[in-house]
């Protein structure tokens, strides 16, 4: 379980959010939504201490991640997989090597075992033939899928997605949404998805955290969200509907 307790973050004098608190149960998929620039990605990077808060804590299985020394933190980070917004693929190596990278450094697997694992991961994200491609040859959707294959290769407990469908066409977005659901089911993962795409939220999430006005404005299940009359949440979710209808 991940507990976020009274998390406050600012960059210089610019307050991002204050006293954010919520919990994510094991096996759940949580969507963190909010307008662009509200600090969703910043929140995500606190979960495995890529960023540190001004105050507050992120507790994973009873241990605050900000209290860990660097060696302990590195071990804890290996329990996370992250799909970054642009994929964050290493552009000096090809697709296969990108996915094999964590295996080479964190496991004692043989070349044969690594090849088998990478091919399985590529198949899982429907990119069976892309292993030999340079990352510069990959489209936006392919980059995200390769990023996802790399994120799951060490079989993490938690999978974090930063805007997994941003910049993608509706069909590819839908494929990514399906992958997120499949990953959560296949590996019994706890997933946290940062997005402002309400289609994604409705397709993949069980719970929703809504960031607005520099705080956690609303938190609840998908069903609760649909019935909610919380004005900023209603305004945010219906804005997507208007776009769709238009």
């Amino acid at each position, binding site marked *: 379980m991940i507990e976020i307790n009274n998390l406050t973050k600012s960059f210089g004098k610019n307050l991002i959010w204050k006293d954010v608190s919520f919990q994510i149960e094991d096996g759940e998929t949580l969507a963190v939504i909010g307008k662009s620039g509200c600090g969703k990605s910043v929140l995500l*990077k606190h979960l*495995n201490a*890529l960023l540190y808060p001004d105050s507050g804590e992120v507790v994973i299985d009873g241990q605050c991640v900000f209290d860990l020394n*660097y060696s302990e*933190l*590195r*071990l*804890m*980070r*290996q329990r*996370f997989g*992250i799909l*970054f*917004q*642009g994929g*964050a*693929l*290493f*552009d000096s190596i090809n697709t296969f090597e990108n996915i094999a*990278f*964590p295996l080479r*450094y*964190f496991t004692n697997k043989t070349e044969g075992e690594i090849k088998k694992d990478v091919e399985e991961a590529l198949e899982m994200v429907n990119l069976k033939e892309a292993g030999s491609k340079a990352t510069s040859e990959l489209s936006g959707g392919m980059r995200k899928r390769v990023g996802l294959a790399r994120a799951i290769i*060490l079989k993490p407990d938690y999978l974090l997605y930063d805007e997994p469908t941003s910049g993608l066409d509706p069909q590819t977005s839908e494929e990514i949404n399906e992958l997120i659901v499949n990953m959560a089911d296949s590996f019994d993962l706890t997933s946290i998805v940062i997005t402002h795409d309400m289609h994604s939220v409705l397709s993949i999430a069980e719970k929703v955290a809504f960031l607005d006005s520099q705080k956690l404005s609303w938190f609840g299940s998908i069903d609760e969200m649909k019935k909610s009359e919380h004005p900023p949440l209603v305004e945010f979710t219906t804005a997507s509907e208007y776009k769709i209808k238009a």
Partner: protein
Amino acid sequence: MEALKQLGQYTLLLYQALRSVTEFSTYRENLFNEFVKIGYQSIPIIMLVGVFTGAVLTLQTAYQLDTDLYPAYIVGSIVAQSVIIELAAVISGLVLAGKVGARISTELGTMRVSEQIDALESMGFNSVAFLVLPRIFAGILMFPVLYIIASTLGIIGGVIAGAVDGILPAAEFMKGGRLFFFPEDVVFGILKSFVFGFVITSISCFKGYFAFGGAEGVGNATTQATVLSCIYILLADFVLAAILL
């Protein structure tokens, strides 16, 4: 205040790099890649710099000493000693601040803004050991080698220029060179290049590693890395000369 913050960040980065020295398996592969990129791939430009520095210095020294007051071989003494003590290290350093420093800061800056460094850290990887340490190590170890090449080529360039221009025969040049050759000057030059290697690679790693703000941010980081490397090379050159000469 900003300068103090940057100094603190730079010091912490170096401290983290130092603490990561034992993680050889993390940076082994990159270290050998950097030996090639910083060392081997810089040899052509260093040879060019060395030859022309020695050649031009010979012509200018001969021009300035165009009098019967000094024997001709004194040109060889001045050129050889200037190249060994000062020019091979400093001019190579300034050139490499552009070639090596700009490459390092651009590479790391691009990795930072495209979240590749975050990706490394999020896997539980020590990104400083993987990216910063091998570049600094390679700089420290390869710059002295490049200095020796530049010095040797500088003297050869001087010999050729003197002979071709008819200023003094090669034997006279070498006689002058040997007359004021002190091995400790070479040690001084190697020490300088060692320091310059550290200055250029550490500043460039620092600027690239903490780059932010997209393509413009990477551009700014690269410019700052190159300019600061040049400034600190000149500063370090002065300090080392004041202390050791």
